[in-house]
């Protein structure tokens, strides 16, 4: 059978350095302990999913979506819109009808 994680095809070891790089891409700051744990766990996971490497699927087209996607059209008429005050009221900081954030380019205000 069947219901199993297939045997590891290759040891996909992830170093703490790799892990920190991926965390930076994902805008996460991980503690040293998290980095250690995740590098082991991600390595194990990738070992298991590596079973797909054994499949002869080079000629298959990738599926991004279960069904064919198309863009439904509607008449260009104004519809219901969200209440901007209600939307803004849920933001951590807002001012003058806008979301307020700390400096983006590093300059303190």
């Amino acid at each position, binding site marked *: *059978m*069947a*219901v*199993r*994680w*297939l045997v590891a095809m290759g040891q996909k070891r*992830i170093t703490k350095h790799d*892990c920190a790089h*991926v*965390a930076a*891409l*994902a*805008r*996460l*700051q*991980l503690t040293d302990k*998290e980095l250690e744990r*995740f590098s082991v*766990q*991600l390595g*194990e*996971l*990738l070992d*298991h*999913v590596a*079973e*797909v*490497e054994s*499949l002869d*699927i*080079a000629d*298959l*087209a*990738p*599926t*991004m*979506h*279960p*069904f064919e*996607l198309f*863009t*439904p059209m*509607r008449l260009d008429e104004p519809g219901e819109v*969200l*209440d901007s005050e*209600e*939307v803004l009221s*849920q*933001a*951590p*900081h807002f001012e003058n009808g806008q*979301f307020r*954030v*700390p*400096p*983006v380019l*590093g300059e*303190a205000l």
Partner: protein
Amino acid sequence: MIQPFGTATDIAAAVRSGQISASFVVDQHLGQIAQLEDEICAFNIVTVEQARSRANEIDAQIAAGEDPGPLAGVPVALKDNLCTRGIPTTCSSRILEGWKPPYDATVVELLHQAGAVIIGKTNMDEFAMGSSTENSAFRPTRNPHNLSRVPGGSSGGSAAAVAAGFTPIALGSDTGGSIRQPAALCGVVGVKPTYGRVSRYGLVAFASSLDQIGPFTKTVADAALVTDVIARPDGRDSTSISEPAQSTARVLHEGVAGLRVGVVAELCGEGIDSDVAARLQEAVAALEEAGAQIGQASVPAAIYGLSAYYLIAPAEASSNLARYDGVRYGLRVAANSSPAMNIATRSAGFGEEVKRRIMLGTYALSAGYYDAYYGKAQKVRTLIIQDFAQAWEEFDLLLSPTSPTTAFLLGERTADPMAMYMSDVCTVPVNLTGQTAMSVPYGCGDDGLPVGVQIMAPALGEPVMFRAAAVLEASL
């Protein structure tokens, strides 16, 4: 667990005919919640005041001679990733704690129009990532059949709420089995409709090409009733199927005589507990007795479902969860620049499993690894779709266990992500293909805990799937 109250079908009939009031029904269920919720922890919030005031509205409609709809006065619990205007929607995550959506999900509107009464938002694995509801940032939910066991996940709060008699109906979402697996573990009916059949507008996104909303109920007839209410085309979801849905309730009693039913060999062997396999065989025998033609089906690529799923779902999640940056909603951790604020907010606001999946997805999508992992997983997805297509040439329905085991102990799998992911082995293939499937309770395991049987049908095969579910339920 004793079920003190009627089914949704019975409640709606009694409320519509004036035999009982919606207020009485709601108070009855709120009473049950007050009595048992401390032990079970199914809810993130119980909307007592809103539910009572909504019940009064329904009663006023009845008094005025109006018909509130097919779910008149029926309490409904919603998984806490379904947007409810003005009512906190947290996804059981610290990063969304306290956020009140400015709009209702389409399913919430449809339930409202059908006369239902929302009684609360249910606990879940954070952002629907998990199979036990232990990944909730708030607290784990317990299985009403045995408090030392998990209810399954990620929609564990919804499954437990129905099993505990808190509500006859709950909605959940199913990305890799998150409705069917908790339904099986809690002994209730759970349906994952065909992808696109139920609008995802207002469902907080996890993996957009896999997510689908569906019901938990005590009976198959109730599941059909709710499915018929929520399965509608919706212009606000570009992936919504534009054709109207065929009624499932109307064909419920048409039986299975002549239907070709295949048992999926690849999902029924090693790794499935023997008591679970035995219940499946009994279900197969019941369908045969009712006139179905039984055969063995083969979907060879189904065994690769988990691997493809655990690349595709985290990849989509890593993109979808980029929106939690501390700018527009929920948590913000202060820092002296926006990039630093984004990082501090995400690092403090996401729990461990969410971080793990974002990391896995980011890795699978990163330069140099995209083709090897994400690209390959998408091709495996194609292979699985092809193998199912071949099986559908021979069979109208396919069967497998819903979960390889009955409900496991709290804490048993939290330290080992791989062991936890195994819970989804029978359910993920259907999310990858977009087909419909449901779990129907079918007896108990050796430990006395519920076992579920999974019925799978081709896309838009809900009516025929419900016919088989009704036969199974009646055979118990």
